[in-house]
Structures are given as C-alpha cells and as structure tokens.
C-alpha cells in the first residue's frame, strides 16, 4: 500500500515535470503546437525508447485520467462569463454542435465499417456470410 502510494507520487512528479518542461519548451521555442501536446509527445517518446510503461507512471496516470472531469471544471464554470454570447447565438450553436456531431458520427460509422471490414476479416480468419 505504502509503496504503491510512493510509486504513484513519483509517477505524478514525473508527469508534472514533463508538463512543466513542455510549457517551458513551448514558450522558449515559440512552438506552433499546444504545450500539453508537447508533453504527450515527450512522454510517448520516452515510453517508446524504454519499451514499457513504468509501474509508477501507470499508477499515477490512472486517477489523473479518470478524474480529468474535475480538472476541467474551472473552464466549464467560466462559461458563465460568456452567457451573453451563448444566449445571442443559442440556436446557431446548438445546430452546429448537434447537427455536425450526428452527421459526422454517421459518416464515421459507415466509412470505418467499410474500411475496416477486410482488415477485421483477415484478423479473425472467418468467412463473412455477407460476401
């Protein structure tokens, strides 16, 4: 129990340092991509090099990813500041969000199914009754 917590704390420290380093790189080099993305790429690179996810990182990542919603509350609450923008464009915004999401999901389901059919078949090695 104790070691798990220590490992988790160490993993968390590593993730935080990677993020801070990414923020630093982002500003120091004026990178064109978001700092968090720079952080993801750094960690991914490290994982690819060491060819496994260290236990400490796994332990730290689990609660952070599971409670991402909590960390997103400040920006969600700040939307109160944009209430007038929302009221002014309510119909347009709803139309854009609902309409485009449904339509793109339909396209995505349909095309993914088409594209992946052969790959999935090859993988499972079973004849499809439809073909």
């Amino acid at each position, binding site marked *: 129990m104790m070691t798990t917590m220590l490992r988790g704390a160490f993993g968390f420290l590593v993730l935080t340092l990677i993020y801070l380093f990414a923020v630093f790189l982002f*500003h120091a080099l004026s990178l064109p991509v978001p*700092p968090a993305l720079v952080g993801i790429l750094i960690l991914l690179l490290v994982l690819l090099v060491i060819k496994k996810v260290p236990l400490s990182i796994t332990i730290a990542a689990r609660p952070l990813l599971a409670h*991402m919603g*909590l960390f997103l509350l400040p920006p969600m609450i700040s939307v109160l500041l944009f209430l007038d923008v929302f009221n002014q464009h309510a119909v347009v915004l709803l139309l*854009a969000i609902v*309409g485009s999401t449904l339509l*793109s999901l339909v396209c995505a389901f349909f095309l993914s199914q088409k594209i992946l059919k052969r790959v999935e078949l090859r993988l499972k090695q079973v004849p499809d009754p439809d073909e």
Partner: protein
Amino acid sequence: MNSGLDNINQLFIALWAEPLLQTLGVLCITLLVYILARRLYAFSKQNALLNPLVTCTVIICSALYLLDFDVTQFTSSLSLLDLLLGPATVALAVPLYNQIPVIQRLGVRVLAPIIIAGTIAPILGWGTMYLLDTSETLQMTMLVKSITTPLAMETTALIGGLPELAAVFVILTGIVGATFAPWLIMLTNTRSEYAMGLALGSVAHVVGTTKALSISETCGAFATLGLCINGIATAIVLPLLFA
C-alpha cells in the same frame, strides 16, 4: 529563454492569488459537488446526459448565479485544478502507447477512419457556423469541438478561439455523440466493434470512449486510439493552418 520560466512561475503564483481560506472553501465545495455528481452518474448506469462534468457545472453555475458570487474569483480559487490538468493530459500518452500493438497488428489502415472522422466533424461544425454568419472567433472555437477538452482549449487559444467556450462545445459534442450513438449504430448498420470504437473516440472524444467501453472492452480500446490520434493530429494541423 526567460519567458518560458516566467510562464511556469505564473502557473504557481495563481495558486495563492486568492485568500487561503476562500481557496480551501471553494476547493472543498467543488470536491463535494464532484463526488455527489459521480455518485449520481454511477447510479444512473452512466447515462451520458448525467455526465458528472455537466451535473457539476450546472449545480455550481446555478449556485454562483443565484448567490451572485464573482465567477472569476471562484475559478481563480480553483487554480490547483487548472494546474493538475496539465499532467493529466500528458498522461494520455499512456493509453496511446498501450494501443500501439493494435496499430502494428492492423496496419496503418486503422488510421484512415480516424483521419476521415477527424476531418469531417470540424469541417461540418465550422461550415454550419460559417453559413449562419457568426463571428470568426466562434468559428475557430467550433473547429476543435471533437477533440479532448484540454487539447481543444490550448489549440483554440492558438488559432484565435475562446478556450472556455471550446470546453463547453467539446463536452456538448461528447454528450450528443454518446447519447445518439446507439441509434446511429443501428441506422448505419454498423456491426464491427472496431468501427464503432474508432468513430466514437474520434468524434465524441472521452465521453464517446466511455460509451464505447460500455459496449465492449475492444470497442473501448479502439475508441481510446481514435481519441488520442485525432486529438494529436488536430492539435498539430489546426495551428499550422490558422495560427
């Protein structure tokens, strides 16, 4: 060189910007509401409409509105959560790394649906906004609606949108996607779990991935792949195009 360190320093200065007692009080209240919202979500068998983030936002926003509490002061007391969002986003590299064997097994073809879905969704969203003649800020904000919230906020800041609005658009997109997914799956006669997962992850990000996990483990794994790849690709491409 200095500007980089200054920016890191500012992240921490924000932590004690408000009186300590207020910061602690706001944090405790927020945590309490969050725990209750999660209970409710679990109790409703993970109904997308009761996503804890939404319940929390509605409860806290109504309270702030009714009590006439200063929103800026409240969110500035929550700087700790802001700060934790960074490491949490970096942690996304872990599920992505765990999905690499899937890409190796299925070949790059598995990326095609993600790229297609990741292109259609923002274009449709932006197109609607453009046709209905809204401001450019709103159009730019709509472009990031299908990627995971932290990346969406940072990306939209780079291309001239509003991060706070982006967060709301993204969450709404996820909820709409996850709620209607079962019907759309029937409508398109989709039977491949790979396809369901990839589409859900790349159009409806984390909320869609939760839905995919409720379909099956495989479906969830593919949704995670869609979520990560689309988030990264969009966050790279949009700033290059518009920044």
